[in-house]
Each structure stands twice: as structure tokens, then as C-alpha cells.
């Protein structure tokens, strides 16, 4: 079984809650889409061609100082459970992991994993360079991914057009090839029913939102991924500055909404959040959606300082390690849905009991 603890950062550095606004913003991710000149895009390429792309990239990465120490994972050689594990850990996309039955994993699908960085190979594009950070840090994440891009671009020729910029498989990524996204927890805006206004405001500012797992995924547990919608006609710097500016506004609105909740309905809110905690602490069976929703409540309670002695790091860990493939790995066997629900409740109880004692 794939051992993610062997990765340079254990595969979890973005969970450590060390970044700015970490109780509201879980993580910041920036990815750049790049393709190699002279090869068809992965969706069109034949098996041999994708393997040659992988070989070219391997050669470049092995000589690249910003990617020194990265670990290569051949996604195409992993079992389905292992690929799901990487996806649950937010290290590879659904497409690269080949999780849709209609689109099985492609030969040559691979990922280089580093300390908060990833190089996805043979996904929709030949290369997806990404940087993932704890908390809110768009400019910092860009600096990391830009260094990878500058260096690799000197070693392999990227497909670039003077008018259209970096060429990508899907024209929605053409130009900068950049998607900067922030995973943010907005229970205050949801509970005060301000969220609709906020989201439509985002769209007017050229931003878009998705669920926890990117494109097409549902919003669960009040977690939203907010990112730039367009990639062409604006510089990377412009996109970053605008996203940062808008997100600062969203964060401050969320903080205002939380203050309003506490001011106008302190007992109702307090009761609701403690009930969420109580359920997680003692339930014997939890579906993933249930766990996510109660975790959202507990996260809000910690943010409001109603519950103390429970770290944001633990909450982040609960979010990731209570997913199906992670539970199966911990239990050392494949689990049916009801077994997974039991294992999930057991895991959540254990982690919360370990942290309890300092509050009540």
C-alpha cells in the first residue's frame, strides 16, 4: 500500500493550520497548466507518446533545483484505492487518478510530490505545476509555483503562442494557464443567509466557486473553493491581486457574520454547535456528509472560541482522514459503506477524546 508518510512533507503540510486566517481559510492552491511542444495533449496522445512525455519530464525534474527531493509516484501503476487516497489527500485531481469509470487512469499518469508542491504529469495537460499552502497565502503560493515554472521552462520547451500565451488542452485555461484557488469555510455567511449575495458578487468580480474537490463537486460542510474564472487577457499579478483583495473582503464579511450570530442568537448558536460536537464525540456511525456538516459546526465553535483546547490542525486532520480511502488504509482492508461509517465514527471519537479533557 502506498505510504504517504514517506513524502517530503508527509503529504499533509497544508493541514498544519500555520498559515494566515487558518481557522477560516484551509488552504491556498495555485496551479499552472503547461504542455510540451511536439507532443499531442494527453487526451489525444497514444500510450507511447505519453510515456515519452513522462520520460522528458523525469529528465528535466531530476536536474531542477526547485524540485530537488521530490518523490515520483507513478499513478498509472497504483491500485484504485491508492489513487483514491491521493485524491482524498488533495494531491492529485480526479482526472489524473482516473476515478471516473468512463475515464480510467491513463498510461504515463504520474505526479512528483514535494514539500507543499506537486507536478501532475499527463493529466488534461502534460504538466500541471501546483503549490499548496496552509491558510491564506496567494502571493507566497505563486512565488513557489513560478520558480518551478521558470526552471522547468528552461529545460523543456513549453507550447507558447505569442498572441494566446500558454497553450492548453481546454481553451478555458489558455493564456496564463493559472488557476489560483482558496479553500474557505463560510458557515457564518451561510447561517446568516448572506452567502447568495456573496457568491453572486464573486461572479461579478470574475471569480467562481466550487465544492471541496474542485470542478463539479458539491458544496459540503460550508467549504467553498473560490478561484479565478478566466486565464487570458490579465497578467498573473493582476489575477493574484484581485483574488487577494476579494478574498480579504469575503473573510471580513464572514467575521462580521459570525459576530452577528453571536450577538443576535447566542444561545441558539451555542446550543447548535455543542450539539454538533456532542454528536461527533459520541456517535457510533457517521456518513461522510454528516461528519462534514458536524465538523463545520465544531470548526465554527472553535473559531468563535466557544470550544477551547481543540486545534484547527486536528479539525483539518479529521476532514481528510475520515474519508473512505483513508479509513480503509487505517483499517488495513476494503470497507463496505456501513463499515466505513462505523470506522469513521470510531476515528472521530478517538481523535476528539485524545484532545478532550481541557474543555467541557
Amino acid at each position: 500500500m502506498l505510504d504517504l508518510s514517506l513524502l517530503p512533507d508527509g503529504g499533509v503540510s497544508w493541514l498544519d493550520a500555520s498559515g494566515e486566517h487558518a481557522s477560516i481559510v484551509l488552504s491556498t492552491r495555485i496551479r499552472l497548466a503547461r504542455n510540451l511542444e511536439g507532443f499531442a495533449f494527453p487526451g489525444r496522445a497514444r500510450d507511447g507518446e505519453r510515456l515519452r512525455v513522462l520520460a522528458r519530464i523525469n529528465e528535466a525534474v531530476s536536474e531542477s533545483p526547485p524540485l530537488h527531493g521530490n518523490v515520483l509516484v507513478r499513478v498509472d501503476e497504483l491500485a484504485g484505492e491508492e489513487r483514491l487516497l491521493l485524491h482524498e489527500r488533495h494531491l492529485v485531481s480526479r482526472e489524473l487518478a482516473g476515478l471516473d469509470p468512463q475515464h480510467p487512469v491513463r498510461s504515463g499518469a504520474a505526479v512528483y510530490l514535494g514539500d507543499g508542491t506537486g507536478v501532475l504529469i499527463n493529466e488534461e495537460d502534460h504538466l500541471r505545476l501546483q503549490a499548496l499552502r496552509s491558510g491564506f497565502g496567494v502571493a507566497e503560493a505563486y512565488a513557489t509555483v513560478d520558480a518551478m515554472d521558470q526552471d522547468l521552462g528552461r529545460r523543456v520547451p513549453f507550447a507558447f503562442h505569442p498572441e494566446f500565451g500558454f497553450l492548453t488542452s481546454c481553451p478555458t485555461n489558455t493564456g496564463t494557464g493559472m488557476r489560483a484557488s482558496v479553500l474557505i469555510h463560510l458557515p457564518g455567511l451561510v447561517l446568516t443567509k448572506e452567502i447568495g449575495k456573496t457568491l453572486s458578487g464573486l461572479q461579478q468580480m470574475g471569480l467562481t466557486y466550487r465544492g471541496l474537490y474542485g470542478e463539479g463537486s458539491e458544496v459540503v460542510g460550508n467549504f467553498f473553493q473560490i478561484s479565478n474564472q478566466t486565464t487570458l487577457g490579465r497578467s498573473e499579478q493582476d489575477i493574484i491581486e484581485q483574488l487577494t483583495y476579494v478574498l480579504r473582503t469575503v473573510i471580513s464579511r464572514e467575521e462580521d457574520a459570525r459576530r452577528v450570530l453571536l450577538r443576535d442568537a447566542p444561545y441558539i448558536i451555542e446550543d447548535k454547535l455543542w450539539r454538533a460536537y456532542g454528536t461527533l464525540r459520541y456517535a457510533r456511525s457517521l456518513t461522510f456528509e454528516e461528519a462534514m456538516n458536524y465538523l463545520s459546526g465544531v470548526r465554527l465553535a472553535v473559531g468563535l472560541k466557544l470550544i477551547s483546547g481543540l486545534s484547527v490542525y486536528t479539525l483539518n486532520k479529521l476532514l481528510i482522514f475520515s474519508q473512505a480511502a483513508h479509513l480503509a488504509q487505517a483499517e488495513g482492508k476494503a470497507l463496505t459503506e456501513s463499515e466505513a461509517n462505523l470506522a469513521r465514527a470510531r476515528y472521530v471519537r478517538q481523535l476528539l477524546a485524545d484532545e478532550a479533557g481541557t474543555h467541557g
Partner: protein
Amino acid sequence: MLCDGCKERDSVITLTRSDAQGVTELHLCERCAAERGIETQLATPKPALTDFILAVQKQLPASATDSGRCSFCSSTLRDFKTTGRLGCAYCYGAFESSLRDLLRRVHGASRHQGKSYRPPQPHVEEGATMLAELRDRLRRAVEQEQFEEAARLRDQIKVLE
């Protein structure tokens, strides 16, 4: 169906109310629903790619100046309309004017403003790799009796040689 609120946009949600006067239905667009405090989009954000493909199918005109088939990967505009994805970087040249229009619609611009890039000078062996790739394609095209494709590939190989 048009929104009962603004009478301008398409409705996305139907509210059914039953009271003493009987059952009434109200069809609302996203914006009018939001004004009444009803969330229509929270649980399922729009699947961007599906929307994008629909937009492609609706909007992409076959431009007279574009060639029918990309000479490098042999994708057609029809392939692109079906999948929403291009076959290779050379497709941008083959379908340039259709794509310029599409990029304008999708991004509101068609000119890259981000960082500039100059690829490293190709080594001799890179040219050789590409030649090998094309010869491989040629062999397959002949095997599969795709003679038009084979002729195109032969021309490309000549240029590189």
C-alpha cells in the same frame, strides 16, 4: 420558462405554495430567487466543463479560413465540439480564427497579458524524437489504410528532414 420576477431571465427554480386560495407556482431565476432569500446554487455549483462544451457547440462557427483537420494530431473542429478539448498545441494554428472568437467569448479577451516565454533552443536529439514520433504515426496510418493522413505525415517528415 421565463422568470416570474424579472420576466427577463430563464427560471431555474419553481416554488410551490399552498394556502387557503389553493396551490400557486412561482418560477424564479437565480437572481430573483436570491433576492427572496432562496439559495438555488449552493448544493450544486455549475459543472463548468459541461457548460463550456455546450457553449462551444452553440457558438463555435466553422470559419472559412480554418483548415478542416489539424495536420499534427489530425483532430477536427468536430472532435473539439464533442469533447471541449483540443488535440494538441498545433490545433491553435489550424483553427486559429474560430478559437480566437471562442477565447474572446470565454475570457473576454484573446491576447495574453501574462508572462512571456521563449522556449529553449531545441537540441538535435529533440528533432530526432519528433521525427521518430512522426514516422511512427506514418507507419500506423499506412497500417490502418488512412492514406490521406499518411500523405500529410509524409509531408511533415520531409519538412523536418
